[in-house]
């Protein structure tokens, strides 16, 4: 009987507070994640919107190819016009 009472005291004064503290820690951690995720949403949307201009890289690629081709033509003309060193 005495051991039972000792067990009850340990249960009430140690086990229950420890369980509550641990669960509260988990809950606080989960609550801390929520605002971080909420803050992440506009950032991700803004980043996605910033990348809209990436499609223009295809145009840039074409322009660069055309420019290099023109430069090559100029180079060929200069090669004909100017003497070698």
């Amino acid at each position, binding site marked *: 009987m005495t051991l039972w009472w000792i067990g009850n005291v340990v249960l009430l004064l140690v086990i229950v507070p420890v369980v509550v503290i641990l669960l509260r820690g988990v809950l606080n951690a989960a609550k801390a994640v929520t605002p971080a995720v909420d803050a992440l949403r506009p950032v991700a949307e803004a980043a996605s919107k910033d990348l809209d201009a990436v499609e223009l890289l295809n145009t840039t*690629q074409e322009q660069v*190819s055309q420019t290099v081709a023109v430069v090559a033509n100029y180079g060929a003309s200069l090669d004909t016009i100017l003497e070698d*060193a």
Partner: protein
Amino acid sequence: MEAAAVVTLIAVVLVILALVTYLVAVILELRKITAGLDAVIGSVGGIVRKSRPVNGVVESINSDLSAGTDLLEGLLEKKAGRDDAAGLVESVFPGAGASVLERQGRTGEVKNIGEVYTRGAVQLARLGRESPLGAGAMSGAALRDPTNSSAAARMLYTHPSGPVADEPGGARHRPRSPTIGTEAQEEGASASDESKESGR
């Protein structure tokens, strides 16, 4: 029931209540997090989708630009010589001359031709085909040969000294300057037409 059993039951019930309360709260928070991540993952997917072709396109652009750079550097090296090519590039893009030397497989100090000659003088001198610029000192005889360096330019004209007569002993043909403006004579109209109009 004994008192000890009642206390045990109360303690167990308290533990279970704490577990239920906190775990339900955690579940609710996790659901909020899941909903938030669902919203974020859409935007992240957009980022991934939009940035997927970047590598290929940028590599293609770099490849094109590298080809253009190699072409121009090769042309410059061919026309200006290995010694002056890096110096010319250095005069236009300070710091880039060393890269040219590296691509030539050489090391050493780059002579910035632009510090010795203005860009126009360098271009004119290059066209005149003199000794390598930047290799010599600033003092000394002029680099440009006024006689031989203009031979190519003079070859462009049949008579560089000026117009000649159409017939032996005749007047030199000098075409009139075109008249411009609203009252300009129509193209092809003769001088007699012009005199008729002036007699009216």
